[in-house]
Structures are given as C-alpha cells and as structure tokens.
C-alpha cells in the first residue's frame, strides 16, 4: 500500500513530574518494595512523595548505618537490590560504614542521599558534605544528579550497576532542588550500558584447561566463596552436582557458607584463620586447587609465600581484578560462578581422561586422619550450675532451631561469637547466613537481621551477637518494636571484647588493655525497655529452656547467654603463619608455633 502522506511526526513530550515523584516511579520500575531510611531536611520532598503512595514501604531505622546494614540483610537473603534513603551531611556520613561493608562483601545496594540545592553546593551550607567525594572509595560507583533530565536515567543505571557483575553499593546524591523541580520520566534503557559490561560467560578454552587440570589431580581441593552465593540458588545446586560428580573435597569461606550443605561428608568445614584443621591442611597439601568465587583473602591464605605451595591453581571470579591479586594462578577464568560451574559440569563428561581414583582414595584417607583429630572438640560440663561454653550454646541453638523445622536465618556481629557461629552452626542452604566478612563491622548483625525479617516476616531471624558488638547498633531494638519484627538476639556474653582479649592473651602477654567492658547494661531489662522480651541463662541447665522460649516468642527477644569468659576460638592460624602452623585448642594441648615479628604487624 502506498502512502502519499506520511503521518505527522509527533514529538512525544515526556511527562513532567516533581523530581521526588520521578524518583519513586523509577524505584517502583526497578522493583523496590522496601526502603530503609531516616528523614532530614534535604530529603523532605522524597518523604512527602512516600507519604502519598502505598507501593513502597518505608522502614524508619534509628541510625543511618543500620539502614544500610538492614538493606544488606534484605539483599543477601533475597538476592535483590537493597534500597536506602538518608539525608545530606550527617545522614550520608553515617551511612559510609554500611556502604564500605557492602563494598567489601559485594552486596547490591542503592543508597539515596539528600544534598543541599545545587546552587549551594560547595558553600559549606547547613548539613552539606561532599558525599560523592567521601563515598567514591566506599562504593562501586556514585552519582551526583545535577540536571533534572538525568534523574530517571541515573536511578535506572544505579540499579543496573549495583546488581551487575560483582555486585556492590551505589550512591545517588540528590540535591533538594532536583527533587522539587519538574523532571521528565524515562523508562529503564533496554540498550547496553555505554561502558560497564561485565563478563559473565566463561571462556570455553579455559574451562577445558581447568577440567584437564582437575582430572589430572591426585590431591584435588575445591574452595568456594561468596561468589557462589551471589550467583544464586542455581549456582549452589550446580556446585553440589559438581562436587558429588568429582568426589573431591570442598571447603567454604566465611562468606561462602551455605553454598554446600555442611553436614555432607565431602565438606571439610570452613577454612582460614579459624577454619578447621582438615580444611586448612587439605588446602596446604593439595596439588590442584579450584577456587570458585573467593578472593584469596588474607584471612584465608595466612602467610602468602607458604600458601598451598605445591598446587596448580584455577580461579573463577566475576571480577578480573580479584584474579592474580594476592596469589598467582595458572588458570584464570573470568565468569559468573554459576555459569562457570555449569560449564565445568558440561566439560567434565567431554574430557576423556579419568580421575586417578586410587590417588583420590589415598587423599581422602589422609583427610580422614586430619578430620579424626576433631579440631572443634570442646568439653561442656553438664552438671547443674555448670558454666556454659560458647561453642555449646551455638550447638544447642543449631539443634533446637533445626528441631523446630522453621526456616532460620542467622546473622552475626563481629568477633569470637561470629567465628563460633561459623564453626558450630551448620548451614545447608545459601542466603541464610549474613555476616560482615570483609570489613568486620561490629554492629552489623542486629540491623541485618532486621532487614532479613522485613523480607521474610514468618522466618526465624536470629542475630548471634557478643555483648560488645550488640551495643554498637542497639538502638535498632526500637525499630523492631515499631514494626513488630520478632528478631532474636542471642548474646554470647563473656563481658570482654572476646577476640581482642584472645589476641591480647596470645600475642600481647595477657595484657588486657581496654578489652573488658565494665558497666554493661542489664540486657534483660534493656530488652524490656524496648518493648521486647529479655531472657538470661547463666548455667548450662538453663540454656535449652531459654533457647526454646526465645524461638517460641512472637516478639523481639534478647537472650543474654552468660558464657565462659576465658574461652578462646580455635583452631587459629596466627597472623603471618602458614596453614600448617595452626594453634589448636586446649583439648589438643594448644600445639602452637612461634608468632613471627612480621606476623605481629598484621591485623
């Protein structure tokens, strides 16, 4: 059909709305259901827009740091991007710890920060801070929106950057006039990003090389980290398949716990500074190592020049800069963990070589002799009035929550209790374990559990805490009360900053400088004052009842578990030592190597 008259070209004028409304519309398009935030002058237009809608729920925290940790808990337990809203100046600076925490642990967060109006930027205005300057090294990327026409595009792009490749936190700094002035709405771009296009598919040639190396192994070892968790459930499923198919031993990093069921016989436990004897010695002694989504962190490697000295190493990571950063590897593979494991599975059957099963059997025999040492052994007196060992408290928590059959999420603060939780709580699914691994942020666990509970209202969300860490974000008990979030805080109370005390005992001649917390609050009364339930166990015969009462309650609970003050966290690889120079617990006569001067300088 011929047309004599072309239809008159209409230039579609994009709809104009107030910036704050455009912002919320873009958030909705990105699937945001919950924002963790705290209002202030610069973000009042956003709060006004939130007031006039119901699609996005706002959780009012009591401190901006907690808002970010809550969003992290939300993101880690759901696999979605966590969203945060804070005001300018102190609102933004308070959020920085949370942002760095998310950066170190690769958690997708979009943090909206208020800013003074564009014409006041640089004038030292009230509540002004150079937020993009301050958060540049604290985020994966950040934006300052200076033109209304950029607003919608920047919001969409921020979510893309936060969740793509190696996930991370993204800040959008929003001057108040941009929020008030009319802005055009644009939908999310369907085209590729101009410059950020992370590689996710593995190179087939490298996968083939990896399979050949693994099949030639006599003492293989698989070591996986948070990359498998971030990749999603499918990656964990593929990992289980691959490990079973190969018959190889596997260990997880602190961030990677839950990717492989920890009660499985091929699982050697966590590795690293407080990892198991068998996992660390297997890492030290293996001849081919497959690292999937872990980054050879110093807490894992110990002394670098003695780290797994005789192994050929394969490293799969979505972030090219994680490869060959600390440990040179022979076969690098830049890819998403899940896609890479699928590719390994597919290539495994195509490679004609067979695994040397005789050698593998011998390797397992060796591993079993290490496992037989039972490095996590401890002695709990069961007599009435017996003092509670912290390890026993975690073990009972695990047993009783498991018996309850409820879906259970565990978060932690940072210190001894965190390591005991990693050692004694057995994870069998990804995304149910939230801990501050990279940054080691005390005060992480309570707000993180809060974020998890918001996403999973019917689940059991427990923060395993220490009495020192919990005080760093204790104000969030008030948030729990306001939103009826029945988070459980399980405090292993030894009245010391336990990990500091442990290092002082082992490395600083038992000079306990400033690690004893005098004048602790009464945690039972504290819970009650925040409209929660306070419970306490001071002896082993009370422990089970307290745990049962805690998980049966439909309210927020603080369970103050008074544990052995002198207990240390073992096994331990002292700073600057190698995997085969581990200190074991009292049960094993504290076999200890000397700590080197270089090691003393390490943290």
């Amino acid at each position, binding site marked *: 059909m011929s047309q004599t008259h072309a239809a008159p070209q209409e230039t579609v004028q994009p709809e104009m709305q107030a910036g704050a409304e455009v912002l919320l519309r873009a958030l909705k398009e990105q699937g945001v259901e919950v924002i963790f935030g705290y209002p202030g002058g610069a973000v009042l237009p956003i709060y006004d827009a939130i007031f006039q809608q119901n699609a996005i729920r706002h959780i009012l925290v009591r401190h901006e740091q907690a808002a970010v940790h809550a969003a992290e808990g939300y993101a880690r337990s759901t696999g979605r991007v966590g969203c945060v809203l804070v005001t300018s100046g102190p609102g933004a600076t308070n959020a920085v710890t949370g942002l760095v925490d998310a950066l170190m642990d690769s958690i997708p967060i979009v943090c909206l920060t208020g800013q003074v109006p564009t014409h006041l930027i640089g004038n030292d205005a009230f509540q002004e801070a150079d937020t*993009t*300057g301050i958060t*540049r*090294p604290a985020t*994966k*990327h*950040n934006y*300052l929106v*200076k033109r209304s026409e950029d607003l919608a595009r920047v919001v969409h792009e921020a979510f893309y*950057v936060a969740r793509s*490749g*190696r996930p991370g936190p993204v800040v959008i700094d929003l001057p108040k006039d941009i929020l008030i002035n009319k802005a055009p709405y644009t939908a999310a771009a369907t085209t590729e990003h*101009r*410059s*950020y296009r*992370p590689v996710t598919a593995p190179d087939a040639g490298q996968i083939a090389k990896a399979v050949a190396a693994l099949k030639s192994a006599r003492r293989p070892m698989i070591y996986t980290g948070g990359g498998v968790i971030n990749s999603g459930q499918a990656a964990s499923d593929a990992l289980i398949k691959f490990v079973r198919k190969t018959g190889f031993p596997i260990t997880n990093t602190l961030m990677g716990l839950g990717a492989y069921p920890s009660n499985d016989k091929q699982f050697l436990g966590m590795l690293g500074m407080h990892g198991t004897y068998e996992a660390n010695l297997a890492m030290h002694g293996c001849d081919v190592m497959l690292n999937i989504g872990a980054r050879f962190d110093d807490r894992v490697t110990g002394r670098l020049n003695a780290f797994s000295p005789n192994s050929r*190493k394969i490293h799969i990571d979505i*972030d*090219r*800069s994680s*490869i*060959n*950063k600390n440990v*040179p*590897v*022979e076969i690098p593979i830049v890819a998403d963990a899940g896609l890479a494991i699928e590719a390994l599975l597919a290539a495994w059957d195509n490679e004609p070589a067979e695994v040397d099963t005789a050698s593998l059997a011998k390797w397992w025999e060796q591993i079993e002799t290490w496992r037989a040492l039972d490095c996590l052994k401890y002695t709990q007196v069961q007599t009435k009035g017996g003092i509670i060992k912290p390890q026993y408290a975690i073990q009972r928590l695990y047993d009783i929550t498991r018996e309850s059959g409820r879906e259970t999420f565990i978060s932690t603060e940072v210190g001894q209790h965190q390591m005991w939780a990693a050692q004694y709580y057995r994870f069998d699914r990804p995304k149910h374990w939230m801990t501050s691994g990279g940054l080691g942020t005390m005060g992480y666990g309570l707000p993180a559990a809060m974020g998890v509970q918001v996403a999973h209202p019917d689940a059991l969300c427990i923060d395993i805490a220490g009495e020192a860490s919990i005080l760093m974000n204790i104000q969030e008990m008030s948030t729990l009360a306001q939103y009826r979030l029945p988070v459980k805080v399980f405090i292993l109370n030894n009245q010391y900053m336990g990990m500091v005390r442990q290092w002082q005992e082992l490395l600083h001649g038992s000079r306990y400088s400033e690690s004893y917390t005098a004048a602790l609050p009464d945690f039972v009364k504290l819970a009650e004052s925040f409209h929660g339930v306070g419970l306490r166990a001071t002896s082993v015969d009370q422990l089970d009842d307290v745990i049962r009462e805690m998980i049966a309650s439909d309210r927020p609970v603080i369970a103050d578990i008074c544990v052995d003050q002198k207990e240390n966290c073992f096994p331990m690889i002292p700073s600057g030592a190698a995997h085969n120079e581990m200190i074991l617990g009292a049960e094993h006569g504290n076999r200890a190597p000397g700590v080197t001067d270089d090691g003393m300088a390490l943290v």
Partner: protein
Amino acid sequence: MPIDTTLRSATISVLVENEPGILARVVGLFSGRGYNIDSLTVAPVEDGRNRSRINIVTSGTDMIIQQIKAQLDRLVPVHRVSDLSTDGPHIAREMALIKVLGTGEKRVEALRLAEAFRARVVDATTGSFIFEMTGATDKLDAFLDLMRPLGLAEVSRTGVAAIARGTRII
C-alpha cells in the same frame, strides 16, 4: 607459580566517559591502593567531548601492573584500558617549557644545545630563554640535565601522551 619481582615502567592509556569526578576516581584508585603515578595526562579526545583519554606512566612488578589494568577496567565509566608498553610498539611524547636564565657564554651555550636538541625558542629576553621541547621522556630529561649548570630556573612539563604504532587502536 613463582612471583616475578622485577620492576618495570608501564604507559597505560585509559579511555573514559567524560563525567564529573572521573579523574578523582582514577587518581583515588592509585593512591588508595598504593600504586605509583610517575606522570599523568588527561584531555577530551572526541568531537562531542564525551570521552577523555588518560595516559598514566606507572611502575611496578608485572603482577601489580596487571592488577592496575584490571582495577582501572572495573571502574564503571571506563571504556577501555591498554598497557601500551606491552601491547605492541607505541609512541610516547611529552612537551616541556623550559626557562633558562643567564648571560654571556652560558647563554650562548644554552642556545647552541637547544638547537642540537631541536628545542624551539618561544620567548627570549636579554637574560632569559624559554625553550619549547617535545620528545620522549628520556630526551627531555637529558636536555634538562644539560641546562642545569647553564641556568635552568623553571620547568613546566605536560606528562606523557602515548599512542600505539600502526593500525592498532585502543
């Protein structure tokens, strides 16, 4: 695998989105991670001024230089990164404005050497010369060494601009 500890110099070119803060991002990456910057140049290189090219001369072991490349490459506004010193032959040039004060014999000698080095006189008074000189870094260094005893008073250098030889583009 044994770690190669030999230090080498590297000229890295980075094509970036020309957005606010990009230079701070690149420089902050170097200072935050403890890498050296021996020289740095930056300017828009496209018609719409949408993209800039940053040339950085740095040094480190091969593992560190690979790491610098990977770290630069994962910055969101970075389009491309090339280590010109290993990706093939390349040209690297910088420009310097060199002020030499002096009279008499030294002044004559300075001018004579400048001619030999193909430095251009861009300003002159009875007591001074300003030479403009373009060349590889070591050529500029050699000329400055010669000028030092002849009254070298002030230098302004651009830092290195570099590009691959032949048909290869970044």
